[in-house]
């Protein structure tokens, strides 16, 4: 029905409301698709989190207690893939879907049916990932994917057919995010309300514009790399097979050509969220809007050129590693600029500390800390010692959990009243915040020491000298995990009811999205608002 209507309709023409399952399966509405993205990512967050709990339970004490090493490695692999592709990216995409059209005064995303397609590709990819986990359980299914999320050959050429499902997973997720990115770029470039110039756009839109461009540049490169892997596995090519004239190091280059900008794909939307939240609760406009935009572009540009700092130990020439080291250290300049801009926004502001603001402040502190260990890892002689140790694990969790996940929590609490029309339970949300703070830091801070003491990553067993810090880390992880019961409860409670949210929700919100009622109507801005 709705497909037929949309086929001969135009921009303002899809006024019909499909109901029941059709409303969701055939949805072309940015708010419904945004909701589906967010629900999907929450499910994936809980799944990936459950894997993390299993990993930490196994590592609670030395020895092999709960699982086989192969299954442990499979958990490590899928924890990373699910968190990156299943939880963080879809959550950011969901928020983009919900907020971008309302922020720029558009009735919907520019390409609504493409939007639907990119979401269902994502679900297909998620199911394919689950299939890749289940296949080894079937007799004759071969070994599980035990390569880690980096899928380095030659191991990834050797594992069983679950690797093929993983490769198709990457293809599906890649198509999904490329389509979503195209949609977002077209929306931002084309559908802004009259008078909204690029430099008047909310900072969240800028963050997503740059993210979307990064995704279009890097996701196809990863798709190419895993396709070569597929050819090597089944068609007798030798892209990565040294015996046939290939080079496994080429895969590392391709993977990190994707993998490093991917870090900024995860980071930038959350930076956009934080830069939206801080002015609201500091009751001051964002300090240095233009430099914020500039540093995000700079971050994306430099980020595309420094991938090989993940591979210092492969034996590149001294000139090459020096280039990658200097490039990597340069990244601290735009990132530092962003952090200082946000601090300057808070400077002498009339600050209040609602949950989104608490998360925003914690991000500044913790992400800066993660950035500092990043500088340590960027320096070649240091990195060669820290390489593949728990120090790296601690570093990237300190970069990605505050840099991406906590930003999404902040965004969730910030916009939840707008989405549902109800205020969330502030007291419970603060309980969640403090559980996250204690759990997260207790989990990952000791891992720095473990890494410096020489504990390798991705390993099921460890020397008994590492026991105490691992126990602390596991206890922290269980607190961190338990916090999510509170998180889900707060969200469900907010959806079901609560104090009515006003249009502006918070004291000092600026922007078109706050001129709409909470929750906003199914179709917003049928006539575009004019910005002066």
């Amino acid at each position, binding site marked *: 029905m709705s497909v037929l209507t949309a086929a001969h309709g135009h921009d303002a023409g899809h006024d019909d409301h499909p109901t029941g399952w059709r409303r969701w399966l055939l949805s072309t509405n940015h708010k419904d698709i945004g909701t589906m993205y967010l629900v999907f990512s929450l499910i994936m967050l809980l799944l990936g989190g459950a894997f993390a709990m299993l990993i930490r339970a196994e590592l609670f004490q030395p020895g092999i207690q709960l699982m086989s090493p192969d299954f442990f490695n499979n958990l490590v692999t899928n924890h990373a893939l699910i968190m990156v592709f299943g939880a963080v990216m879809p959550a950011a995409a969901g928020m983009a879907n919900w907020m971008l059209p309302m922020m720029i005064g558009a009735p919907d995303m520019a390409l609504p049916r493409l939007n639907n397609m990119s979401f269902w590709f994502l679900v297909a990819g998620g199911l394919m990932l689950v299939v890749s986990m289940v296949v080894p359980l079937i007799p004759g299914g071969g070994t599980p994917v035990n390569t880690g999320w980096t899928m380095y050959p030659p191991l990834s050429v050797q594992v069983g057919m679950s690797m093929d499902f993983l490769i198709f997973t990457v293809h599906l997720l890649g198509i999904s995010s490329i389509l979503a990115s195209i949609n977002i770029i077209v929306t931002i470039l084309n559908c802004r309300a009259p008078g909204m110039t690029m430099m008047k756009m909310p900072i969240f839109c800028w963050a997503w514009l740059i993210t979307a461009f990064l995704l279009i540049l890097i996701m196809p490169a990863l798709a190419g790399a895993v396709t*070569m892997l597929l050819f090597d596995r089944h068609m007798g090519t030798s892209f990565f097979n040294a015996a046939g004239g290939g080079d496994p190091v080429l895969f590392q280059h391709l993977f990190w050509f994707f993998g490093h900008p991917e870090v900024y794909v995860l980071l930038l939307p959350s930076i956009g969220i934080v830069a939206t939240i801080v002015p609201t609760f500091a009751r001051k406009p964002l300090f240095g809007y233009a430099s914020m935009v500039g540093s995000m572009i700079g971050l994306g540009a430099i980020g595309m050129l420094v991938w090989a700092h993940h591979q210092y130990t492969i034996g590149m020439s001294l000139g090459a590693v020096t280039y990658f080291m200097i490039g990597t250290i340069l990244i601290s300049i735009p990132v530092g600029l962003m952090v200082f801009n946000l601090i300057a926004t808070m400077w002498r502001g009339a600050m209040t500390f609602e949950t989104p603001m608490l998360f925003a402040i914690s991000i500044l502190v913790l992400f800066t800390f993660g950035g500092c260990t990043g500088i340590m890892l960027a320096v070649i002689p240091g990195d060669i010692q820290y390489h593949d140790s728990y120090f790296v694990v601690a570093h990237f969790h300190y970069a990605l959990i505050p840099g991406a996940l906590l930003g999404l929590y902040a965004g969730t609490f910030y916009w939840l009243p707008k989405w549902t029309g109800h205020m969330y339970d502030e007291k419970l949300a603060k309980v969640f915040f403090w559980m996250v703070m204690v759990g997260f830091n207790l989990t990952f801070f000791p891992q720095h020491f473990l890494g410096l003491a020489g504990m390798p990553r991705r390993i099921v067993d460890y020397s008994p000298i590492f026991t105490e810090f691992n126990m602390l880390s596991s206890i922290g992880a269980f607190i961190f995990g338990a916090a999510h019961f509170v998180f889900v409860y707060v969200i469900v409670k907010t959806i079901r009811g609560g104090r009515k949210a006003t249009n502006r929700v918070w004291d000092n919100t600026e922007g078109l999205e706050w001129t709409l009622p909470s929750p906003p109507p199914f179709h917003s801005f049928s006539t575009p608002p004019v910005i002066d």
Partner: protein
Amino acid sequence: MSATVARGRRSRIALWLGAMAAAMFFFGFALSPLYTLICNVTGMRTSAAEAPATRTAAGQAGGAAAVGRLVTVRFDTNVSRELAWEFKPLVRKVEVAPDRMTEVRFEVKNLSNETIVARAVPAVTPWEATGYFVKSECFCFREQTLKPGETAQLPLRFKVTAGLPAGIDALTLSYTFMRRDVHSGGATTPGRGGSATADDAAVAVEPRARNWIETLTSASS
């Protein structure tokens, strides 16, 4: 702006972005030959390949600066005290391009009235250059025997490899002839002939000197 114009603009941007994604997909495949190409063009190598050149910081430029570089090689000759030989290079000095094989000759004359077996021991100065001085043929590989009054021309074929640290533009190759059969003729050590072979005697009389010779010769080969 009418709806159709807006839709046209949207599709155009979307198609451009789609083309960009497709291009990046094939760029991934193109990287396979491109990496080799980039490394060949820029002369970038792996750290393993450049390891000998990194002994000194200046050695970094060694590989790249090889074109047009000339290294001066001087020859120095000595004979040990108990050896009545005359030993001199036919050329005192040559300038060689890196990796180019060069042949030079030395002249040696037995001044005594006995047959003498001796062996030349090489040394390269500065010592850092030793590993980059490669001999494919040398009279020092074997013992040399000269009859009384005999003169011989001895060949040396060598090259200086391109990995030679950039700070070194001249080196000296020094040879010292050492006598191996101090007892066979009896002229220098009269009255000590006997049933022992020449080599045994040498070991018995001068073990320390012999070991020193062997250490040097094995180190240089």
